């Protein structure tokens, strides 16, 4: 017991001595002589001290000297700002971030200061596009103070903060809307993002003070912003659906806007989603391909064929020329979407056309249809099914010929064109013109007819070869036998004579 008392006493003694001989004495708020002195000065010497009054760091007892160095315990300017005593003054651009990371990358220190902020910001920034050397090579393209400001730094949730949600578009626009500035780094990057954003539903809501809607950082991230071409970027084409779904699949967030939240779940199983996310086809559309990105708005009823037509241009063009265009507009039916759906578009099949209950045509052209829609839908399906059946039969015939060892490579090759004909025919359905449909499909029937003849001829030829061989063999054998008998006869006569 006595030993423990001695050890505790010794510990207190060591701490006491350390405090007495410590070079730096703790400064109590209000005792920061740097701040006190600068508040008596004017203009540029006054402003930092004034701004610092509301800075979040001041509330954490962080003094001017903690960043700028020097002695905050004396009014003697020569002593207080003596560079030999560690005074740094205004840090150079390449050094100023060191002031921030001194604490913000030190987990223990942040905890001691009572902050729950993450400590990986600097690491993230270093890997980001902004963490690259600036054009004058005197620092980074953007560092902490570029966004968070200096001396008046507030928590991002604080409306006074420069990175408050409603202030972010303008903050980013400071550089990204400046053509001269952006030329120094990426002259190909557009500078109208903020202007577009203002016209988007996100931007409109944001300007009204709605901090739930997406702004720049919601999609691009904060400290770890990467270019959209970087697969690690949150806005890389295949990452976009997930980024959008962070809000659009959140029922709580979306309830305010009365929006559905199933778009993402539908998209991932759709033909587009599978192509993009499973097959990694980077040319497949993501959310922004149809909705836009900075100027995101849902496509209007009459603009859908243009949006889809960006990729499916022939289909879009044909639809615009079709009688369906005027009819859909009249009924306010969304163009492509009426037949194909939107987020959950499934691969098209021939089952979509025709007059069966599962078809899409039947939605408008049922049996009571006064026009010829029902009849044409029925015929179109019948003709396509007929060509597919012909294709199957002819391929089977050619397969038989091939198995018999006959060469039907030409016919096989020609049959590959059936696929092309079917693709063209399915495309021209968008024209809703039965005459053109038939004309497009007709070459397919001609190919199958020709290939069927070739296949049949090959099989006939196979049998002919064998039959011919049989006859030839019989004839030659008869000749051989006759010759053999003749030889025997001659030799018999010769023997008799001799």
């Amino acid at each position, binding site marked *: 017991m006595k030993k423990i008392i001695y050890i505790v006493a010794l510990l207190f003694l060591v701490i006491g001595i350390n405090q007495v001989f410590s070079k730096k004495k703790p400064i109590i708020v209000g005792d920061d002589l740097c701040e006190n002195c600068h508040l008596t000065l004017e203009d540029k010497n006054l402003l930092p001290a004034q701004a610092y009054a509301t800075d979040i760091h001041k509330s954490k007892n962080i003094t001017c000297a903690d960043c700028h160095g020097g002695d905050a315990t004396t009014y003697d300017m020569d002593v207080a700002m003596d560079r030999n005593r560690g005074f740094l003054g205004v840090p150079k651009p390449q050094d100023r971030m060191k002031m921030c990371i001194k604490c913000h990358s030190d987990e223990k220190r942040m905890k001691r200061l009572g902050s729950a902020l993450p400590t990986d910001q600097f690491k993230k920034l270093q890997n980001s596009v902004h963490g690259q050397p600036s054009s004058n090579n005197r620092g980074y393209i953007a560092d902490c103070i570029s966004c968070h400001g200096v001396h008046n730094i507030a928590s991002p949730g604080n409306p006074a903060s420069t990175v408050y949600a409603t202030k972010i578009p303008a903050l980013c626009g400071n550089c990204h809307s400046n053509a001269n500035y952006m030329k120094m780094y990426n002259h190909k990057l557009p500078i109208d993002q903020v202007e577009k954003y203002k016209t988007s539903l996100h931007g409109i809501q944001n300007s009204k003070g709605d901090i739930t809607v997406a702004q720049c950082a919601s999609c691009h991230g904060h400290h770890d912003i990467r270019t959209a071409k970087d697969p690690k970027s949150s806005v890389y084409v295949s990452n976009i659906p997930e980024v959008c779904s962070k809000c659009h699949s959140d029922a709580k967030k979306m309830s305010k806007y009365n929006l559905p939240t199933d778009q993402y779940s539908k998209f991932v199983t759709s033909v587009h989603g599978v192509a993009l996310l499973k097959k990694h086809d980077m040319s497949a559309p993501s959310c922004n391909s149809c909705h836009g990105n900075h100027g995101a708005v849902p496509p209007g009823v009459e603009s859908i064929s243009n949006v889809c037509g960006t990729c499916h241009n022939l289909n879009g063009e044909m639809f615009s020329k079709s009688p369906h265009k005027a009819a859909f507009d009249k009924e306010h039916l969304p163009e492509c979407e009426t037949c194909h759906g939107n987020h959950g578009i499934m691969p098209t099949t021939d089952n979509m056309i025709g007059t069966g209950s599962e078809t899409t045509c039947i939605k408008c052209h049922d049996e009571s249809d006064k026009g010829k829609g029902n009849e044409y839908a029925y015929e179109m399906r019948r003709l396509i099914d007929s060509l597919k059946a012909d294709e199957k039969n002819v391929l089977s015939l050619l397969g038989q010929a091939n198995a018999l*060892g006959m*060469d039907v*490579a*030409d016919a096989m090759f020609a049959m590959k064109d059936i696929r092309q004909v079917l693709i063209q025919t399915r495309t021209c359905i968008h024209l809703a013109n039965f005459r053109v449909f038939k004309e497009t499909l007709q070459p397919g029937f001609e190919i199958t007819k020709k290939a069927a003849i070739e296949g049949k001829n090959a099989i006939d030829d196979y049998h002919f*070869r*064998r039959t011919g*061989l049989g006859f*030839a*063999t019989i004839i*030659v*054998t008869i*000749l*051989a036998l006759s*010759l*053999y008998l*003749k*030889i025997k006869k*001659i*030799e018999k006569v*010769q023997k008799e004579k001799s």
Partner: protein
Amino acid sequence: MIELTSLKKRISAWIDERYEISNLISYMKKKSVPKFRATFWYYLGGITLLLFIVQVVSGILLLMYYKGTENLAFESVQFINTKVYFGWLIRSIHSWSANLMILGAFLHMFSVFFLRSYRKPRELTWYTGFILLLLGFGFGFSGYLLPWNELAYFATKVGTDIVKQVPFVGHYFMVLLRGGEEVTGATLSRFYGFHVAVLPAIFTVFLTAHLMFIQRQGIHEPEDWKNKSESERSYMPFFPNFLLRDLLLWLIVINILAILAVFFPWELGQKANAFAPAPKGIRPEWYFMFMFQTLKYIPGKVWFIDGELLGIGFFGIAGFLWFMLPFWDKRTKIGIRNKLLNYIGIIVIMFIIVLTILGYVLE
């Protein structure tokens, strides 16, 4: 019937009056062929000749459609196979007949070897026959490339590479054969030229000489007949007996040829592509297989001599000795039975058969 016979006689008389056919027939009737247990082997020369005639006829028919250029060779053979009426049959017969002709020539040569028919005074018949066999190899080697398919392309590459190993003149010969450093379209045109012009011209000269020698000297009699009396010897007239038997065999061979061509049509494979990796199973024609397989067994270096060179040297010397057989077979020359030669012949045949089988089995 009487009228028909008299018409036949009148036609024969008409022809005989102008071409004196009766002289030729009476000459052929005077000719006789020894009749003994090995007479069958005497028909092999005739069969080989028939197959050569088939080659000439089917080759001429193929010539009408074949195009000997790098871009068109494969396609033209494909066209012959699929579009030309009976083209598939002609090509298949040409390929089968070529192989059977070499087989016939081999058998004919060995029968002559074992029957000692090469001995004096038929040395030149042996020499010309051997040269005809080599020319047959030449036909085979050059014809193999003509369809310009993958297998033939790489086999020709390997084959012509072997030629390079011959000391001093090897590289020169390789360039001469290929028409350059590599197997290209120039090689194809060159081989085509050899196949349809150079080789047939030389072959015709030697074949004419070979046939003339046989006609002039008659057919060789068995060695042991020298000790037999006239009554113990048996002959058959060349005309009509031997000739008709020859014809009978020809008909049988034609039947076999037709069955092979129809049931086992010759495949074309894939078009040659110089940039494609060499396919599996590159192999020469079967009659080169024993040499190809032997070269595989010879180590890369034997003492200070290159393995391939040693192989070429071995086959070169062996071939030359075989060629010169009538010259160095002194015992047969003086009428003494040379048993050692029989053993050599059997060893050579076994060597060829075993190595050929190994070549295919171990592929």
